């Protein structure tokens, strides 16, 4: 059973090698191995539900020094979902993907490794695996469009450098690379955490570090944009959830607010922008004044609802739909704190109302993106009734699902934690 957390990584890397050796059979090889990853993930979910998270420390090294993998419920769920998505793409796409499949599987290997690993240096290594694959994919897609590719490379390499230095300083401060050190951070430790946070924000393309995402994805084929969107930027988000565990609660709220406001500024007209900001600020005020788990869920839902209004109201031509899809799929809100809490809860146990809430919210956002993308270019300035319905549904589902969480209290004597 201990092989399960490593299984997905091995399958994906094996797929890269086999597809490169035998490009003619790349589709069949990929489909088989993706099915293997999907089945192993389902088996992993069953095992975690029965026996708890599965931990593997390679080579018999002490904990926090060697390479360690941890397969929890959420990790297996993410890996299984990613494999299923790629399997659907490989099975139903008519385009010739034989040269892109090794890159897709490389992205998947980086994604699986990032989800399963539990130390920062291996997180860096898997990030780089994902990065090299995304370089290759972008090169195949964009050809010799030098500026776009070079900008992407420069941004990503600078973020990787910040991450590597942050990892080194983390080890120097805590004496371990494990993601859950017991000692409180020193000033050196804080520097490490800040560097890691910045690197993850750049890699996940969270506003105000999002400009490279829209720039890079423009001109990309839709089929290739999906794995890049799902696997590459989400890897950064996974890293961010790991780093956030070291930060006081107020940090994710502050960073989320910065991200949300900086993204809201992008949108026109001003009346819409104001509507979003009022909706969001109301939720934020409620969160700060009450500090209850219910308010956490409400803020998250309000913010996602606001985002749906943005998407449904936006003219089609002004921004590439892929770019907006990326922005829409990112946790722009202070409700990201509640999302992290929900992820850690889901890591431990299968919480059906919570899972249903997360999935429903994501599907509602996705539906709004599709709705927006299918609208005529000269759209009315007011959101459609369907968008309003989606917005209300998201708020309702979000509040119901997040209110069942046993989240830590936000307010402690003396102010925010």
């Amino acid at each position, binding site marked *: 059973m201990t092989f399960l957390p490593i299984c997905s990584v091995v399958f994906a890397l094996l797929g890269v090698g086999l597809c490169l050796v035998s490009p003619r059979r790349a589709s069949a090889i990929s489909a088989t191995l993706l099915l293997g990853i999907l089945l192993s993930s389902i088996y992993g979910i069953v095992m975690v539900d029965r026996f708890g998270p599965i931990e593997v420390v390679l080579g018999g090294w*002490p904990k926090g*020094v060697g390479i360690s993998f941890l397969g929890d419920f959420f990790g297996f769920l993410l890996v299984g979902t990613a494999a299923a998505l790629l399997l659907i793409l490989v099975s139903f796409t008519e385009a010739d993907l034989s040269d892109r499949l090794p890159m897709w599987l490389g992205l998947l290997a980086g994604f699986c490794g990032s989800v399963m690993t539990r130390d920062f*240096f291996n997180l860096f*290594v898997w990030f*780089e695996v994902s*990065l*090299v694959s995304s*370089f*290759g994919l*972008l*090169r195949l897609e964009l*050809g*010799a469009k*030098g500026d776009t*590719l*070079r900008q992407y*490379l*420069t941004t990503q*390499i*600078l973020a*990787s*450098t910040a991450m*590597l*230095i942050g*990892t*080194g*300083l983390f*080890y*120097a401060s805590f*004496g371990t*690379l494990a993601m859950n050190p017991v000692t409180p951070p020193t000033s050196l430790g804080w520097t490490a955490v800040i560097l890691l946070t910045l690197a993850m924000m750049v890699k996940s393309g969270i506003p105000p570090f999002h400009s490279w995402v829209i720039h890079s994805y423009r001109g990309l084929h839709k089929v290739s944009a999906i794995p890049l969107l799902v696997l590459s930027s989400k890897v950064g988000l996974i890293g961010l959830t790991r780093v956030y565990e070291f930060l006081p609660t107020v940090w994710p709220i502050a960073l989320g607010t910065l991200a949300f406001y900086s993204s809201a500024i992008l949108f026109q007209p001003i009346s819409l922008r104001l509507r979003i900001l009022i909706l969001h600020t109301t939720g934020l005020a409620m969160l700060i004044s009450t500090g209850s788990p219910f308010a956490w869920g409400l803020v998250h839902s309000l913010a996602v609802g606001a985002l749906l209004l943005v998407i449904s109201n936006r003219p089609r031509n002004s921004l590439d739909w892929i770019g907006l899809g990326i922005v829409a799929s990112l946790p722009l809100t202070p409700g990201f704190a509640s999302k992290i809490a929900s992820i850690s809860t889901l890591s431990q146990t299968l919480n059906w109302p919570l899972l249903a809430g997360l999935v429903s919210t994501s599907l509602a956002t996705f539906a709004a993106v599709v709705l927006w993308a299918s609208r005529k270019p000269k759209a009315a300035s007011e959101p459609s009734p369907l968008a309003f319905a989606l917005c209300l549904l998201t708020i309702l589902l979000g509040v119901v699902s997040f209110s069942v969480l046993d989240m830590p209290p936000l307010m402690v004597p003396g102010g925010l934690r």
Partner: protein
Amino acid sequence: MMVLFTAAGIGLGFGSAVYLLLSTERRTWLIGLVLLTTVTNGILFLLNRPSQLAAPFSGAKDHADPLPQALILTAIVIGLAVLAVATLATRKEDQR
């Protein structure tokens, strides 16, 4: 004094690397990439200290910490791979 020199060297290296990375010429950009990787490895090298863990066979405790060295070695390999991919990925620009 040594600390001052090291800090100045790293600062200079980083500044130069970022300056070179902003260049539009491919060759200069690649040199910037190499410099950035090297300076980062230099920082990791400074993290070395006596290990708190017992050596695997002798049990001795007063040996150098192997982990930063492992980090640097891995970072060098990854940096080389990224450099190779970046070189190939941007190759056609100069050929046109």
